[in-house]
């Protein structure tokens, strides 16, 4: 089963790689965007789908990664490796601090606390003008020369998303990943078996934050512009919807969800400004007709 899914996933990656030169410019940027956002959605799913922790502040770690790149690359001329390293580390460090506060809570309270912590980062991005340039954001983030044109960057994003998919796939299939699913199913049983549940959740939180940061790093290069919008609540909600829509507890799900949301968002906004209204309707539809998400529903049907 797992082998078949891995083959299917690799097939999709290969297809996307082959299709690269065939895309016209606008679809190419959209697919690239979907791949970058998919990293955020996959990282969130480690918490939401596998550990059962609904984080509503994931834009915070994504934003820390993105701002790190934007500030280092524009003001200090730091290269890709340096920016990526610092971005991921800072995102992980932020998650390590926030996790100390958030992991004490469960369920809706966890949701509220992660939301509040996300707002703290948004507040800093918005108000700490001397560092973040406030509402104006940081523009003109330079891409490395090799990735300057859209097609190479597309391949870079594809490789990054595939790498995250493989790494997180290994993580969730590992004994540690099994402990996360155990926590999702029954914390009290995990405790009585001898697991320090807090520690496992905390580790998952930090790992998830680090990967969200990696997505943010890519986002800064993709967009060339980082502003408080990237850190705001709507970004966290969209990530949560991608996971819910695609199928929590699967890694393919968030990728599918990211694709659907990115395309819907760009397509719908051609016709109306009421994008969030459409998003809400889509979400209600999924909850009613495929509560386990698109991928979850497909797998359930395949099993029957």
């Amino acid at each position, binding site marked *: 089963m*797992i082998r078949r899914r891995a083959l299917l996933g690799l097939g999709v990656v290969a297809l996307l790689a082959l299709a690269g030169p065939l895309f016209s410019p606008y679809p190419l940027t959209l697919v690239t965007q979907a791949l970058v956002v998919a990293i955020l959605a996959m990282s969130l799913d480690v918490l939401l789908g596998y550990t059962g922790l609904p984080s509503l502040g994931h834009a915070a770690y994504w934003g820390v990664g993105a701002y790190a790149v934007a500030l280092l690359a524009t003001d200090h001329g730091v290269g890709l490796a340096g920016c990526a390293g610092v971005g991921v580390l800072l995102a992980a460090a932020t998650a390590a601090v926030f996790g100390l506060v958030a992991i004490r809570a469960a369920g809706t309270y966890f949701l509220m606390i992660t939301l509040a912590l996300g707002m703290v980062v948004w507040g800093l991005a918005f108000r700490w003008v001397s560092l973040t340039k406030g509402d104006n954001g940081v523009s003109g983030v330079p891409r490395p020369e090799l990735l300057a044109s859209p097609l190479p960057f597309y391949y870079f994003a594809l490789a990054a998303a595939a790498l995250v998919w493989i790494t997180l796939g*290994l*993580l969730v*299939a*590992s*004994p*540690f*990943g*099994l*402990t996360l*699913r*155990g926590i*999702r*199913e*029954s914390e*009290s*049983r*995990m*405790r*009585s*078996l*001898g*697991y*320090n*549940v807090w520690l*496992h959740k905390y*580790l998952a939180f930090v790992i998830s934050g680090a990967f969200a940061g990696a997505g943010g790093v890519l986002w800064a290069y993709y967009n060339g512009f980082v502003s408080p919008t990237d850190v705001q609540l709507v970004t966290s909600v969209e990530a949560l919807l991608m996971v819910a829509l695609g199928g929590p507890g699967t890694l393919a799900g968030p990728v599918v969800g990211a694709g659907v949301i990115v395309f819907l968002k760009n397509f719908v906004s051609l016709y109306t400004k009421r994008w969030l209204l459409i998003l809400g309707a889509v979400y209600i539809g999924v909850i009613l007709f495929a509560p386990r998400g698109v991928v979850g529903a497909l797998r359930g049907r395949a099993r029957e």
Partner: protein
Amino acid sequence: MAEDVLRLDGVARHFGGLRAVDGVSLTVAPGERRALIGPNGAGKTTLFNLVAGTLPVTGGTIRLFGTNVTGFPPHRRAALGLARTFQITNLFLGLTVLENCLLAVQALTPVRFSMLRPVGGYPALQARARAILAAVGLTGVDGAIVANLSHGEQRQLEIALALAGAPRLLLLDEPTAGLSPAESRLMAELLAGLDPAITVLMIEHDMDIALALASRVTVLHQGRVIADGSRDEIRNDPQVREIYLGV
């Protein structure tokens, strides 16, 4: 003389004005099979939760294998060799039978933090999990999702999870709860066949099973120990007969 496996001194748990467990002292010796009986609301499950660490005590001390564990969280007590089952089945319902058992097998090994190899890459743990499942009579359902098992099979899995960590003290909270008479007999056989080195403290409503498996019986009533003795002593204790056996 060997050290007591479990020693409670004046253990109490009050919920507001309600004294659910009210100064219980008892000792359980190595290898003993002890039944804990008492009418509904006597405080049996609360006492289990205090011993396992699920609930903090409001008074008294708990010693496990000579260590004062009164302030220990549940996982540290488990690490000392304590395992328990739950009265209301508490399993990982969305996972497979094998995954449930693997979680129990890896719980006290460093493998639980391993992230780089899939679960299948640890053949020793897999073999142990399968052996435990076979020992409780759950074979051929490794890949089944636990939510789809029958109640009887879920009770067997409860025991498997508790045994997987090779515990020295096993707390069984009504292992036959909700089982048919035939399933109860199977469960009783399974429990009778447990390694004699494992000390067992068991809550059981079915008096036949409790008295068949246990050599000593402790009777709890309104949060207090009212009798403690051999099977026959308990059977003939007039106070016990009055409040518990309803004679």
